[in-house]
């Protein structure tokens, strides 16, 4: 079973190296999935909101890394 664990760990590592960064992305996608049909957001800007959230997560994660690096 060790080989299976290794394979799964390798696959996991392809998509996740900073756990909180990956988790924030998944939470944002879940929020978008839940919120867009329920809230009265103009349909033309939903894609832009998705991008804005991801951009914020990326910027925050990179800034956090740079603070802790030193």
């Amino acid at each position, binding site marked *: 079973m060790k080989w299976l664990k290794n394979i799964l760990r*390798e696959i996991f590592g*392809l*998509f*996740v*190296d*900073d756990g909180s*960064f*990956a988790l924030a*992305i*998944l939470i944002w*996608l879940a929020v*978008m*999935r839940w919120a*867009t049909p329920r809230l009265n957001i103009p*349909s*033309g*800007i*939903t*894609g*832009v909101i*998705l*991008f804005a959230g*991801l*951009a914020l*997560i*990326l*910027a925050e*994660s*990179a*800034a956090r*890394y*740079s*603070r802790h*690096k*030193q």
Partner: protein
Amino acid sequence: MGTGWAHMGTSIVASFLASLVECVEALTVVLAVGSVRGWRSALTGTTTAIAVLLIIIAALGTALAHIPLPIVQLAVGTLLLLFGLRWLRKAILRSAGLIPLRDEQAAFQKNTEAMHRLAIGSATWDKIAFAAAFNITMLEGTEVVFIVIAIGAGHTGMLLPASLGAVAALFVVIALGLILHRPLARIPENTLKFIVGVLLSAFGTFWVGEGLHLAWPGADWSIPALIAAYLSLALAIVPLCRSRSQTVSSST
């Protein structure tokens, strides 16, 4: 007879043009990944995805049309997004000098030497290149399959002309790739890694949005806009990270 040829002709042209767009989108990422991480794994990922798609088509046939496309877009798009943003974050930190490039090169060299010692040699396996190429080819390929089925399902006997149009688009894009891969090799590696991160993130965001039924202004034309937006964002974050790390180090 004339009407039959007209239907056949329009099916081929419509399928060719629609598939061309999807194939070019996949080519952009596969070329960038191949240039950065090596062609062997990138091409293996691409051909594996095409083979998987062909097996699925052979096994399921037109039943594929009943699988909701948004589910495929959301599942594969999420993986692409996680993968792309992870890559872009690393490229930003590398450009900001927070991940030393030289160390990575040394580590790569060390690994390569170790693999040579193990007599693995040129058969080195790059799972990152494989996964990136596989994901994007799977996504765009699924789109092509749906295009062919949608166009081919319009009239009886139109599935073959629609498939021919898609195959022609694939060959045109392969020829394009053969022409473009050499000039790409002259671009510095770090710049290419940055570009790959931007491309994967932009495509991942677009596909997740499609899967979530979000509206993109200009439909497929929002992909270039997303690429430009991610590039601008990443270029803006690099100096921010650099100055932040300097501020922290000078205050400690």
